[in-house]
């Protein structure tokens, strides 16, 4: 086994250790540490990706001396390493871009705690991507939840704390359901490691015993993770939460954390239950319906908002709907669309949040649309980044948004009964997106109230770097998406396989 195979373990441990060390550093050092960490993690994940790609098959890495079903394992596949790369890179860009916002929003003495939390989130995302054990998943989901709550409430306004209480309540319901589901699953299969679960579940499915507990555990696990990632009926915490947190937190939460949960759900579906069992149980139809509702109602909510961050939050709810729509359609094409949309959203939403924060800064810190009038001129780069992100969310060709919509639509066409609802939902939600994003952009470029001068050049530089990177990623992946799609398709083949 080549040395590269050890890198994920080192990454995970390194992020845990960094999080512990950061607590005794001061804010600046902690920030550098965690940014270096995410950069290193990104590089390592790329190396792992290269290795797995060459091997052509996934690789299981023992966490200890004992193989499954006895000891913990992690699983190095194409999708796992690729997504951990994406998560790390986006995390790095978020922290890079939100430098000023962080220094403004964080209390001087507690700044390092923020980066403790981001390191923990980094670790949790890595584990959620790599793990091969459903209970390890549960533990790190909890870490992720607590840490997200931490980066939400660190800016201790009343609204922020209230929002994080809501966030905690919702996501604790989610993890409670998830734990119950895992318990029932363990009760009927006696396994926690995904590969063994896979065999056991398949066998139960064929023999047909414990059918009801199996189905109910699938429901509980899916619903739990859906609640945590903010699927439609449970997305009410989103606007408050993203509306009043510091923009970096909103970016990380909407771009990464919820996506981490979804990725873990996909992992459980594919290498845990197995697509046959999951898509036989009919739960995917529920996801499909709620996904569509999320797309529509999220956009409607966004139209009603007059606060730019809350609008973005609502649109995040809509985007989550897209992902679940994809999962609900079909295990092959649909999931490819969903994965691609996860990428799209992870690349687009953070830059929207960050540039929105910059713009509101030029407008004297207000988030209302009427005060943002004309801020596009005061900070051209932010205006450009925001507009590009908005276009991508609308789904204009040559951006990633169009590609993911295209993939979802094609997937929908293959599924006989879901074709028409899918396309209708896509069209309707796209029109709604157009409505509120166009409104915002026009606001930004309508010359209006005299604005406070834009941020100093150095600050702009730190933001500009990440904004440009995000925009380039968006355009690049939108213009030539074929290698990306090929990678996802290739990875998905190995996703279900037991390495």
């Amino acid at each position, binding site marked *: 086994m080549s040395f590269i195979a050890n890198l994920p373990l080192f990454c995970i441990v390194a992020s845990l250790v960094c999080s512990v060390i950061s607590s005794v550093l001061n804010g600046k050092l902690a920030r550098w540490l965690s940014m270096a960490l995410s950069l290193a993690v990104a590089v390592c994940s790329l190396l792992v990706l290269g290795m797995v790609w060459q091997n052509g098959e996934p690789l299981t890495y023992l966490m200890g001396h004992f193989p499954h079903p006895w000891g*913990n394992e992690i699983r190095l596949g194409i999708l796992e390493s690729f997504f951990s790369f994406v998560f790390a890179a986006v995390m790095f860009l978020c922290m890079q871009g939100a430098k000023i916002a962080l220094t403004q929003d964080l209390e001087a003495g507690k700044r390092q705690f923020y980066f*403790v939390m981001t390191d923990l989130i980094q670790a949790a995302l890595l584990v959620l991507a790599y793990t091969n*054990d459903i*209970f390890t998943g549960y533990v790190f989901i909890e870490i992720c939840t607590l840490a997200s709550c*931490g980066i939400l*409430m660190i800016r201790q306004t009343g609204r922020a704390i209230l929002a994080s209480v809501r966030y905690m309540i919702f996501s604790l319901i989610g993890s409670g359901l998830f734990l119950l589901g895992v318990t029932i699953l363990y009760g009927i299969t*006696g396994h926690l490691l995904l590969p063994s679960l896979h065999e056991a579940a398949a066998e139960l499915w064929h023999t047909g015993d414990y059918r009801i*507990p199996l189905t109910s555990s699938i429901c509980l696990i899916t619903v739990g993770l859906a609640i945590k990632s903010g699927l439609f009926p449970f997305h009410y915490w989103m606007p408050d939460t993203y509306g009043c947190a510091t923009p970096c937190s909103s970016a990380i939460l909407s771009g990464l954390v919820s996506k981490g949960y979804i990725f873990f759900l996909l992992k459980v579906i594919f290498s845990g239950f197995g697509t046959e069992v999951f898509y036989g149980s009919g739960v995917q139809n529920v996801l499909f319906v709620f996904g569509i509702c999320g797309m529509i109602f999220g956009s409607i909510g966004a139209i009603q908002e007059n606060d730019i961050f809350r609008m973005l939050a609502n649109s995040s709810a809509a985007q989550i709907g897209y992902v679940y729509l994809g999962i609900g359609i079909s295990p092959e094409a649909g999931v490819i669309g969903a994965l691609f949309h996860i990428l799209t959203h992870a690349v687009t939403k953070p830059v929207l949040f960050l540039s929105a924060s910059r713009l509101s800064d030029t407008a004297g810190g207000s988030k209302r649309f009427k005060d943002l009038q004309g801020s596009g001129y005061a900070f051209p780069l932010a205006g450009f980044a925001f507009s590009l992100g908005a276009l991508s969310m609308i789904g204009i060709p040559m951006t990633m948004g169009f590609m993911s919509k295209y993939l979802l639509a094609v997937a929908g066409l293959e599924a006989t009964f879901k074709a028409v609802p899918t396309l209708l939902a896509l069209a309707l939600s796209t029109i709604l997106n157009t409505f509120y994003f166009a409104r915002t952009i026009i606001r930004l470029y309508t010359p209006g109230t005299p604005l406070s001068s834009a941020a100093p050049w150095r600050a702009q530089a730190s933001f500009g770097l990440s904004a440009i990177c995000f925009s380039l990623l968006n355009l690049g992946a939108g213009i030539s998406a074929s290698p990306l799609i090929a990678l996802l398709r290739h990875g998905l083949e190995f996703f279900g396989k037991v390495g």
Partner: protein
Amino acid sequence: MKKSEFRKWLKSWDAGEFDFTEALSDRASLPQPDGGSKDHPWKLEPINRLEQGEIKSFRKSYPFFAVVLCCIMIGFLLLTVEHLPTFGAPDAPAHNEVMERYVEKGMEETGAVNVVAGVILDYRAFDTLGESHVLYTAATAVFILLLSLKGGGEPERERKIMQSDPLLKSTARIIVPLVIVYGIYVIFNGHLGPGGGFSGGAVIGGGLILYAIAFGFEPLDKILNLKVYRMIVLCALCFYSLAKCYSFFCGANHLETIFSPGKAGMIFSAGLILPLNIAVGIVVACTMYGFYSIFQRGRI
């Protein structure tokens, strides 16, 4: 706090007019970043009617749906339980080759007589690694919320503690050492019998809290202040992570670890389990005490 007061406290939860500052500790002067102060200017009267209307109608319909939802949930779960393997049945799917290996091979593979300790600290050590970091995350979150930066605390509050009755003090004088010793025993015995880092650490933490209640924080502050706490947690967790990283690395690459299981049943055996238990125990004890102290007075 006195009994009648406690009842008043319980009653007043719903109404919320009870002065929390007596029920919990009085931390009025805890600095608040954006200047919201204890006596807040907003009363409930000037809330505009519309919102109250919304809330009212919402409240009318909401409990009904909630109850219905829960009934559905109960039915659903009961149906599930009815199809689950019967309680205590030895042939349930959960008791499979996994359990067999844990019980039969566990002792020579991990060197732990207490199979559970072997499972959580060797077979499934990765979970436990995460678990201790959950605790750490929670501690950090509580710090973010409640840690007062100008480390003042509140003198009068501590005076109150100092005036606590002699009965408590004399009892504490006897009990605290026993509690702490017992906790240490539980930690060190983790791989031999029932016990382990978490339980032992909790016991020690309880002992420390009892001591703090009886004698106030000053004596403890000398040995366990924020700096010390951070260093302890830092060292313990780093040791934990790195040690585990080492053993994972060896396991994955099929190398021999330097930690041999040793002879089962001896105090120094079971490879890494004992040191890990100690590390976890220290972390848990300090965190428990830290929670109490920080809830009590906003600092450690």
